[in-house]
């Protein structure tokens, strides 16, 4: 799966002023690459990820998914791409609080209409792979932050995505746990050949990335 942007721009109106969160960004997500977008808070990292993840609409410019113009896709088609071809990891984990680890990981598979037996087997496998084989039936409030992020990673992998979009995945974690999560993401990228694009401040992630982008005031400054 390839995602390209052409002069991608996103403006927010705050009161009478306009904020250029993403300003004419040209960017390309290549298959099986590990990419990092770095920049200070408010520089537009998350906005760019949301646009590329088809979770938001640009003010101007284009996004191409496998050379297809995303602006021509229906809401339902965009959802299908997010469900079947992308995996999302959030800084604040965004797990469903009423579901246990297993159910959280099963959720995208259930939404994709996979058989229940397959959902269960895959979810158990993924949770074991991220080191949570003994925390299957724990709800998020019973897990540590590192464990929650592992569940979120397992959830992101549930439908075998071609790309994982991670928005500051280590932002809420201590350095030891952050290191484990980074290494987990890196392993996934290497073993599964899944493209990983990470918005981060974390130097350790930056060091591992194949490509590093810097964004400031909405502009992608250097590669």
């Amino acid at each position: 799966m390839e995602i390209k942007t052409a002069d991608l721009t996103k403006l927010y109106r705050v009161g009478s002023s306009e904020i250029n969160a993403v300003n004419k960004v040209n960017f390309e997500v290549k298959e099986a690459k590990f990419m990092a977008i770095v920049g200070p808070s408010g520089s537009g990292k998350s906005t760019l990820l949301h646009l590329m993840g088809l979770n938001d609409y640009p003010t101007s410019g284009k996004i191409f998914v496998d050379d297809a113009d995303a602006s021509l896709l229906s809401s339902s088609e965009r959802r299908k791409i997010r469900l079947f071809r992308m995996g999302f990891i959030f800084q604040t984990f965004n797990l469903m609080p009423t579901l246990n680890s297993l159910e959280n990981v099963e959720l995208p598979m259930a939404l994709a209409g996979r058989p229940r037996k397959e959902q269960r087997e895959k979810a158990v496998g993924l949770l074991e792979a991220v080191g949570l084989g003994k925390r299957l039936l724990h709800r998020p409030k019973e897990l540590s932050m590192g464990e929650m992020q592992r569940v979120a990673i397992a959830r992101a992998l549930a439908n075998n995505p071609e790309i994982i979009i991670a928005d500051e995945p280590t932002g809420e974690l201590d350095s030891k746990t952050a290191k484990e999560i980074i290494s987990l993401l890196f392993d996934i990228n290497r073993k599964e050949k899944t493209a990983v694009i990470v918005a981060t401040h974390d130097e350790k992630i930056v060091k591992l990335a194949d490509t590093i982008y810097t964004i400031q005031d909405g502009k992608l400054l250097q590669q």
Partner: protein
Amino acid sequence: MRLLTICFRNLFRRKMRTVLCIIGVALATTFVIAVGATTARYATVIKEMSVLFSGQVMVVSKGAIVIQAIPITGSMLQESLAEELKQNIAEVEKAVPILFVTPIGLEEIIQPVPPNFSIGIPVENWRLILGPTPLRGNAGHFPTNESSDEVVVGASLADQYNWTVGTGIIVRGYGLEIVGILDTKLALLNRCVIMPLKLAQEIYNYPRSVNIISVKPFQGCSQEELADVIEQRVEYVNALTEDERNDMIQPVLAQVETWNFGIQTVVFLMSLILVMTVTIMSVSERRRDFATLDAIGAPLSYVFRTVIFETSLIGVFGGVLGVAFGSFAALVLASLYTSIPLAMFFPTFYEIVSPFYMLEIFLAVVFVCCLGGIIPAINATRMRIAEVLRAEY
């Protein structure tokens, strides 16, 4: 993971709020069932009275209020008028004088639902009011013309006071003997003490007076023709045909039904607003969850269904509780209004609150709760992760 399980867990994330909402819906349902079943029951009782005196013209004093064939107010008529009608009007085949007495309360006010009635009727005309009604267990007999203290009573009265054939009772100081118990489904007859006309006149101090005369026309003569003739000949009476009697009660029944519908509508609207408010709050609190579902590609229909399912569950729980409480409340109301002990209503529970009515109200409550979920569900489908996260920061 079944949607139902997810919704159930979501609902009970805020236990107190959900329980209070369910109680609110249950109270509304209780009110609807209790009021609806009570009014429906009385409408049924009034309608079933139409089988009494079928095909007869009822003569009452002018201005008397009559419910079906039962005079509620109005002046008395001379018993001899029955004989005069028969003698002087060729169209009259039979004229039977009857005395209906409803008990008067302590304040000299007629009770809204009298606990019993006394009916005095010439003994040779029992069948006119009782039709083919048998006596319970075929025990006893109907009073004879010679009897001065024999009465038959309705089964409900007999059961309430443990009367059997042969039991002696005292009415207004007169010692009477029960010689038969009526085996009937008609609510009116079930609460009646039926006695010879002369005995009733003596006990209730209406010498040679009655308040209604049942007139049967000769074959070939319509009730309308006979009623017209009677009203022309006797100026101080109203002669009511079967249709006229029904017409008198129809507006009242229609008004009762309109009020009942109005009350139900208001109560259901309040439930809808309650459910909608609570669910809007719940969706607003869980906007991050809904936005996450959107981000990971959940179809809009899934998000919509989740919220609608949750409000439906409130309707199901509230409806079940409300139907149970409301049915019991309807029995309590029936007991209070009729002064009949509550326990006596249990065997006829389904006559007071029919299973169909319970189901109808239950489904209506669930439907209303579903409706209450529509706006919150639409809100939930509009949650976008970018906007939610931006708003949080």
